[in-house]
């Protein structure tokens, strides 16, 4: 086999390999959803985040507007501090409501933002004051049993 055909085949092989890697990154993986647009940071405190993880999505009216950057426990308030990165294009009123929701019955957890009616907007570094924690199945069952017991009395 001559050197040029050898080079051709190896070139095809290497290009195909890198094309496969690109397909894996863009079509199979989530590299295409890492948005490179500018973001600003918001904080929110939750008394229970359930199964929320960093990189979880943040949605408003079902539209993806950002991602959870960091989750830590605030040792003074004993609450979970969630740092969120929101797309610069979207502004929210000061009295926006942050909810931890679940997609589907057993799906991933995400943060839903419900805008309020305030005239002033949240700025970078602000805290979302109104939050609602994740639904924990055990708590729900406990409440249900408790109310059943009260009914029967």
């Amino acid at each position, binding site marked *: *086999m001559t050197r040029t055909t050898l080079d051709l085949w190896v070139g095809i092989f290497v290009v195909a390999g890198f094309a496969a890697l690109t397909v894996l990154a863009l079509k*199979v*993986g989530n590299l295409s959803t890492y948005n490179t647009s500018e973001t600003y940071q918001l904080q929110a405190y939750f008394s229970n985040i359930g199964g929320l993880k960093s990189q979880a999505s943040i949605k408003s009216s079902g539209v993806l507007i950002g991602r959870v950057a960091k989750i830590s426990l605030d040792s003074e308030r004993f609450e979970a501090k969630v740092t969120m990165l929101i797309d610069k294009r979207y502004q929210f009123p000061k009295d926006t409501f942050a909810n931890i929701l679940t997609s589907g019955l057993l799906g991933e957890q995400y943060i839903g933002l419900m805008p309020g009616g305030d005239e002033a907007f949240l700025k970078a570094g602000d805290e979302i004051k109104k939050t609602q924690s994740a639904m924990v199945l055990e708590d729900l069952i406990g409440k249900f049993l408790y109310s059943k017991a009260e009914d029967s009395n």
Partner: protein
Amino acid sequence: MIIESLRSIGHRIVNAVWRIGYASRFFMLILLYSGVSFRRFHLIIKEIFSSGVMSLIIILVAGLFVGMVLGLQGYETLKRYGAESALGSLVALSLVRELGPVLGALLFASRAGSAMTAEIGLMKATDQISAMALMAINPIARLVAPRFWAGVISVPLLTALFSVMGVFGGYIVGVVLIGVDQGSFWSQMQAGVDFRYDILNGMIKSAVFGVVVTVIALFEGYDAPPTAEGVSGATTRTVVQSSLAILFLDFILTAFMFQGE
């Protein structure tokens, strides 16, 4: 009788330690002479052709069938929980994290690693390596280092191709033949597979496997007794040892990479 068997155990262990030391010195020599072989890059290209390009067909066909089997079996299991839409993420995660790197490297070891061992071993048996050394050509720089780098470059590329073919096979079975919804197949896959956590870690795995497989194959060939029997034994040892090394290292790497958040 007892002393005799103790002595044979001791002899085996000393021998094994000696061989490990010899193999690591061999590995250092390969790295030392890599610069020379990078200056004559067409040597590496020739070896990429014989080990990488010639392994393409087996890798692509195996990947396709592995993905198809994953699609079928995954569907059968997920159907019980009514979670057929998660088929895409099941197929993609198992391929990208485990099956792609491991099966790709196993196939490479048996297809290309054994050939490397046999080639180098036969060269040694027919005194070609001694003749080279006699002509002041360093056999490690001329024969071994190009093969090493060809393997290290080829294995991650072959792994990526294996995974893509597997996902395609899963798509054929799941979406085209069984009729899982196409939109949820892809969107669940993209929601489940993280680029850095899953794909990059899989690629790191396959690069490590590439280094290990080629070093074992080249060392066994270089160290083979210069007889027909010796070369055949060395080829067998290459396949056995590199397969075991791949599976063992896979466990170690997985334990480090995917230890949960």
